[in-house]
């Protein structure tokens, strides 16, 4: 499975030091440490995952809850690795959301090995040029061993024992008149993972869903929200944690949205695709399987000034076998239009593909 591949090319760094102690952490460039986003393909796109100390912002599409897919996998991945989690949302009972988290795919069975094979082919050929490393199938996935990144089965709920422990903290921001309470919770939570401690034993995750949504009473106080995100960013920077915040940009003023985008270390956006867009269906292979689009606007550059330039910034979100979340480059359909079901036969990797309204 994609999640279990270890880097074996001579170009890769020696990852053994941290990974041997904690499978949830991985060394990145410039002294950063990655944790997994919970989506193997997204980890690959971002060059390894989310860097500890970074603020990840996801811009929601008001028409579809695709940001929840990212959020669920991010949270599940942390819980599976027993990383402490703070989850805040505008719902009345945020704890109930934990029941909808996906479970890691069961490692055994002929079905999965078949699936692995198919996936390997696809990824090897599609992502080879990003990483320049052979994708060897070193499958160590037996006996429920902890891995850096799992494949999550979206149709199977996460075992209760993962989130019944006391390292999960849920906060409802629905009725709080301002963000001071949430800020205090975050500060208290992050204080346990201060970076000064030298060795990193564990990483923490904070997930805040629909940050500026109108259910919150503070949603018209933009400066209040901005200073909360800014201080959250400042706190995250000095701790071993990743903060993921999703927000609906259409509900706040354009300048406020831009400010939030500037604050983000990693900036993603999700978009729904219309069901019956015939023009788009003609342009893209595999259109029928797509549930949405993911845009990567910014990749965190901690401790470096060099920007990460991706070959493509728009990816299609697909559900493989209706279970697994995969991200793919958009492939331009051959002129005569081929069947979207065969991944292997689709056109070349599309760094330069231009397709109507979709910009790269």
């Amino acid at each position, binding site marked *: 499975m994609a999640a279990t591949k270890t880097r074996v090319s001579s170009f890769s760094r020696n990852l053994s030091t941290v990974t041997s102690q904690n499978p949830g952490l991985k060394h990145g460039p410039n002294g950063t440490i990655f944790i997994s986003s919970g989506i193997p393909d997204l980890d690959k796109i971002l060059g390894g995952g989310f860097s500890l100390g970074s603020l990840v912002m996801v811009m929601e599409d008001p028409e579809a809850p695709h940001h929840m897919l990212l959020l669920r996998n991010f949270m599940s991945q942390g819980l599976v690795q027993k990383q402490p989690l703070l989850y805040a949302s505008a719902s009345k009972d945020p704890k109930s959301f934990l029941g909808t988290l996906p479970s890691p795919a069961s490692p055994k069975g002929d079905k999965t090995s078949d699936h692995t094979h198919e996936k390997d082919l696809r990824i090897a050929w599609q992502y080879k040029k990003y990483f320049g490393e052979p994708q060897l199938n070193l499958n160590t996935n037996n006996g429920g061993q902890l891995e850096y990144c799992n494949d999550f089965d979206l149709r199977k709920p996460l075992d209760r024992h993962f989130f019944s422990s006391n390292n999960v903290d849920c906060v409802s921001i629905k009725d709080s008149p301002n963000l001071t309470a949430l800020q205090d919770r975050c500060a208290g939570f992050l204080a346990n993972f201060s970076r000064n401690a030298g060795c990193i034993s564990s990483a923490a995750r904070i997930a805040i869903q629909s940050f500026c949504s109108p259910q919150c009473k503070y949603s018209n106080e933009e*400066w209040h929200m901005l200073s909360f995100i800014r*201080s959250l*960013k400042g706190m995250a920077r*000095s701790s071993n944690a990743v903060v993921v915040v999703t927000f609906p940009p259409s509900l706040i003023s*354009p300048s406020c949205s*831009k400010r939030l985008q500037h604050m983000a270390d990693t900036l993603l956006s999700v978009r729904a695709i219309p069901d019956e867009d015939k023009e788009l269906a003609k342009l893209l292979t595999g259109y029928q399987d797509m549930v949405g689009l993911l845009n990567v606007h910014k990749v965190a550059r901690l401790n*470096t000034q060099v*920007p990460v*330039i991706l070959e493509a910034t728009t990816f299609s979100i697909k559900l493989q076998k209706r279970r697994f979340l995969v991200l793919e480059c958009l492939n331009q359909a051959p002129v005569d239009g081929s069947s979207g079901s065969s991944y292997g036969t689709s056109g070349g990797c599309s760094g330069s593909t231009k397709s109507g309204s979709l*910009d790269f």
Partner: protein
Amino acid sequence: MMMMEQKNWNLLDEALGFHSNNANPWPLCGRFLLVEDCVDTSAAFVLHHILKRAFSSHPSSAVLFLAFSHPFSHYDRVLRKLGCNLAAQRDNGRFFFLDMLMLQCPDEGKSNHDGLASVFEQIERVITVLHQDKRPISIMVDDISFLEVAANGSSNDVLNLLHYCHTLTSDYGCAFIALDHKDIYLNGDRDAIILEMEYLADILVKAEPLATGLAKDVHGQLKVLDKETQHQYGISAIKTHNFHFKIKENGIECFYPGTKI
């Protein structure tokens, strides 16, 4: 060392006047340089570049850095790869790093004395001490938009602070370098800050993405507008420079459009 560096001037250095071999070791003295960028193209690298040049311009030059967006460790790592050791400069008393990441002014209505006023007092204290030794001083602000957030959106307070910093350029001959994000103000929302800053700036550096999108070899384009307000004959001419850039760990590559091999 100096000889080595003189050979390595790039287009940005030329546009900012670093290459000219006149008596003034730090050509930004007494000038205000505003850097503008957008979400797609960050111009933080311009600050890094100027920071590096500031230290190499004169053996006793000093920099006062107001950091709103990144902690010291980030800048230390970035500048180390550029060949400049910030930790050592800090210990030598040449680099003054004011960590403003968690600065939050009290709410409106109350006296802002704990907020930006005390920030300026800090700045002034450092500058007056440094000025006694006649050292070339640069003041850098790495993100004005964060400063606004820290001031709870009070444009007046932010403008006051920026104006005070600007007066230091004439009072003490400091260089004042600040970064702001142009795209925040594009829809005319609270754009007084960017308009006033653009008006006051002696040099404007704008970083933009390429119109054709992101590329591996060209990370964007820079426009440098030098208003030459201190021209010796009082003639105000605006010099503009346009070029593309590619950011690398150990520096930046600048080239005219189409000349990259």
